């Protein structure tokens, strides 16, 4: 590790680079459009290389996943069989309840999830960084997908579209700290705002609300929300009541398991009008 001392350590270089980085972060925070050309060029250049490398790596990746996830897959298979039996019984009751829910939303002129066209998309990649909570799907603006549209699985809300190219879109997951969605607790008729994380943190909940662990949480669809009402989000995993607190601290475990799906649905909501 011997290095010539001729040049010597220069803090100037570091300072300049730190300043440039801060400027870039500031520019990017002003709006995604400013640095979008850079991301587009990177995407165009790197996508073919990435696809080639992935194709070559796939056999090794399968072996790795077989080794590291075998027990998980076995348990998941058993759980899925049990869930399937339970779901058969619930399906009949759910269809009747859905009809009632639709009538309720029509009565209060709320957008309902079933009112929108849906585009099915395949998950093609997870983010390559530990701190980037996004996924990439194989449908883009050519299918009518726009930034801000909700993305769901059969279980519930997964996230929303954060960036779109012609044939691809990037979805910010519920676990991302920048994610936020208006929610409602149907069991107690209370509303709040869920902020991204693992688990989700719900703010602005009335401190007197009788919310319990296990209560369902859904999108509220109120006011200028980008998300229609009635999408499942998850269940309450913890409730913290502080004496004299102005709000109830509620934690929600998302129902959509980020790692166990390959197909998602993009709801073509009216994001431009919102």
């Amino acid at each position: 590790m011997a290095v010539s001392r001729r040049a010597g350590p220069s803090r100037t270089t570091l300072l300049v680079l730190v300043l440039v980085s801060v400027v870039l972060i500031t520019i990017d925070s002003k709006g995604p459009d400013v640095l979008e050309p850079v991301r587009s060029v990177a995407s165009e250049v790197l996508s073919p290389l990435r696809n080639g490398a992935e194709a070559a790596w796939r056999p090794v990746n399968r072996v790795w996943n077989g080794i590291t996830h075998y027990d998980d897959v076995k348990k998941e298979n058993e759980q899925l069989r049990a869930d399937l039996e339970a779901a058969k019984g619930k399906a009949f009751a759910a269809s009747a309840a859905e009809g009632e829910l639709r009538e309720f939303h029509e009565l209060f002129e709320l957008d309902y999830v079933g009112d929108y066209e849906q585009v099915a998309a395949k998950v093609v990649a997870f983010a390559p960084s530990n701190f980037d909570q996004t996924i990439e799907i194989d449908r883009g603006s050519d299918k009518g997908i726009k930034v801000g549209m909700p993305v769901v699985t059969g279980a519930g809300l997964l996230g929303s579209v954060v960036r779109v190219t012609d044939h691809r879109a990037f979805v910010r997951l519920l676990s991302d700290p920048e994610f936020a969605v208006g929610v409602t607790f149907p069991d107690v008729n209370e509303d709040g705002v869920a902020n991204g994380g693992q688990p989700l943190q719900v703010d602005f909940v009335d401190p007197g609300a009788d919310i319990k662990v296990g209560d369902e949480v859904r999108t509220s669809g109120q006011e200028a929300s980008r998300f229609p009402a009635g999408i499942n989000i998850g269940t309450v995993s913890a409730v913290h009541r502080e004496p004299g607190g102005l709000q109830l601290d509620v934690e929600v475990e998302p129902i959509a398991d980020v790692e166990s799906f390959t197909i998602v649905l993009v709801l073509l909501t009216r994001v431009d009008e919102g």
Partner: protein
Amino acid sequence: MIQQISESPWLRLALIVIVAVVAQMALVSDLRISDATGDVMLLIAITAGLAAGPDRGAIAGFVAGCVFDSVLQTPFGLSALAYCIVGHIAGRITLNLLRPIWWMPHAVTFGLSAFGVVVYAIVSVVLRDGDVWGWQLLDVVLVVACLNAVLARPALRMLRWTFGVPAPRPVLR
């Protein structure tokens, strides 16, 4: 073109960074342990500093970070900021070593990788107002540090080639 790459350290750096980001996207990010994945872009920054000193370490970290940021949906410049700091520190550590020891690159890479992840997490919390600590940060630190420590030797060799720095003779103890 090949001759240009072989002669210019900055073109060689560009080539290394592109290979690294493709490897990160296509290979490394799929090999997850406890939901955490390695970070070879951070490895580039650290080994550039170890191979060529603080200035080049910072520049390599900045370039690697910018390229990585261009494929992520996190704020552009976040990785560049964290990696240029880590690359600079790696270079300063190298300058302060009196004699090279064979295990030192692995140990320094382990420590600086852990430090780099924590720096990234802190900057991310400040900028994004989010709870990064809940993201199994310890798992991420350990996975990134261990993988980078294992890959330190070949990466160091690549970065020495990139900047045209000869390898020192190791001191066995």
